[in-house]
């Protein structure tokens, strides 16, 4: 089972990221679940939030938060140090940080995880002229995971954001996918 935890701030689309990953997995024939943690005043814009997504081949009965993820997405590098983002993270897990800087230069020198950084906000600024970076993060995450269906992700974005918003978000995701293939040296399937 993939257990994904997403860290961000209220308004950065962390909850939507979890939902899009779950919708895409469902469209790809899998079972999935997504939900937010809004304790600690997480309904407010700017407050630290967490969202969770589980993806499995069989129905998911668990109804508790993801405390021992094997995938981590950090939408806001400013949370590093404020929130224990690595808490419970399983060894060798994949970590994706939204940052122009390398993981080492922002102080993430842990060798027990596979840590990658990706400039999702830069892509969002190009596409939207606003820092709406969550769909760019999803694109990079899909490339790193290797087994997320990118066509299903596009369908999920179309469903969640019909019309122009969806088209723009798909553009952001595709830009991110192409850039991530280059940056991470992954060979497209």
């Amino acid at each position, binding site marked *: 089972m993939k257990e994904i935890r997403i860290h961000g701030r209220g308004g950065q689309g962390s909850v939507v990221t979890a*939902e899009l990953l779950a919708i895409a997995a469902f469209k790809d024939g899998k079972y999935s679940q997504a939900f937010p943690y809004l304790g600690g005043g997480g309904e407010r814009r700017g407050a630290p939030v967490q969202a969770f997504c589980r993806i499995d081949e069989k129905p998911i009965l668990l109804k508790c938060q993801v*405390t021992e993820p094997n995938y981590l997405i950090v939408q806001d590098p400013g949370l590093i140090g404020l929130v224990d983002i690595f808490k419970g993270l399983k060894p060798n897990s994949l970590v994706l940080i939204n940052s122009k800087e390398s993981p080492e230069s922002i102080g993430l020198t842990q060798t027990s995880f596979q840590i990658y950084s990706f400039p999702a906000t830069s892509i969002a600024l190009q596409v939207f002229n606003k820092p709406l970076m969550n769909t760019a993060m999803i694109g990079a995450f899909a490339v790193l995971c290797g087994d997320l269906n990118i066509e299903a992700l596009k369908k999920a974005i179309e469903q969640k954001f019909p019309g122009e918003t969806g088209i723009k978000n798909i553009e952001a995701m595709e830009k991110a996918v192409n850039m991530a293939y280059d940056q991470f040296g992954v060979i497209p399937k």
Partner: protein
Amino acid sequence: MSVNQGSIKCREIMQGSIAVAETVGALEPGVIGVYPITPQTHIVEHLARLVANGNINSKYINADSEFSAASILYGASAAGVRSYSASSSQGLLLMTEVIFNMAGTRLPAVFSAVNRSLSPPINIQVDHQDTMTLRDSGLIQLYVENIQEAVDTHIQIFRIAEDLDVLLPAMVCMDGWIISHAYEPVTLWQEEAIRDFTGVFFPPYEVNPQKPLTYGALTDDDKITEFKYMVDAALGRAEEKIIQVAGDFKKAFGSYHGDVVETYYTEGAETIILAMGSIAGTIKVAIDQLRAENKKVGLLKIRSFRPFPASRIREVLSGAKTAVVIDRSFSASSGGILGSEVKAALYQQNGPFIINYIAGIGGRELYPHNIKEIITESEKLSAAGTVPDKALFYNLNSALI
């Protein structure tokens, strides 16, 4: 179980609140009276969208408080109209006065309760204190584990509440966030199949200027016990209806989540956990892990808290050594509410030791390892014969007290 393909509208992944609102919308309540409160808001927002877009023909009334929203339902229901609302937490408390009135006046309005902790301290996360506090009103209460069960139970509950042998207000209790805001795969049913199943509400009496009747008249000591007795008896009759409707639903739609209870590996189990709502899913995972180690444990999920299925609980627990009741609410100084009622149901029965834990308050999470710890601790207490009379608060942080 094979789902009846002919009744499927769609198989989709969607948010629990939207799935519930789509289902309630298919039943087109004549009146929807609302006042928003977190985490129930997405349900009434989506119903507002359905009404505004002309998808359904309901009269949608924004009230100035939950008390008014419930009062609007009271009036509509008294006029013979199918009526619906949703609320959470303090909002449900503000509806309480009206809900007692509805039960006493035998008005079958239907509510979705999206469970949330009560203030203070303010907290928007899930426990069951809000709905459990309504337990003495005469209200039917069914608790659900996941989005599919929430959808199916909403269809069932209209038919149960509006049954002429019952005629009581009714509430589907669904955990905040983990059901209301979660995305899960769910089957939505065709509108026509839903309407065929629930039928049309024909009240035996209705407020009608052509045929004046008195509602809510003063009743003195010569008759009031009998009125109260009739509420009690009607709620008792609802138990049989819940069983019957769950069976009919299974035949019509091919979907089943238990009737008044759901049992999970209780046959021959030495230890049985009792719980309500979404944690039943997490408990099932813990039980699967323990069963793989040949531990004889099972789950008795209580779907119907009101009516309270005492005889079914006695029956299921009769062979067990240890019963562990997990409560997400409590009656101050008395213990867990479900725990106290399970103890009462088993009084003088020579049944299992009963250990009552108060856990999962205000969103404090319970993971499979917590469930296993609770089971291990309970089995120890039971084997030593040192079961405490009082409920135990699980994982209290004594440094904060």
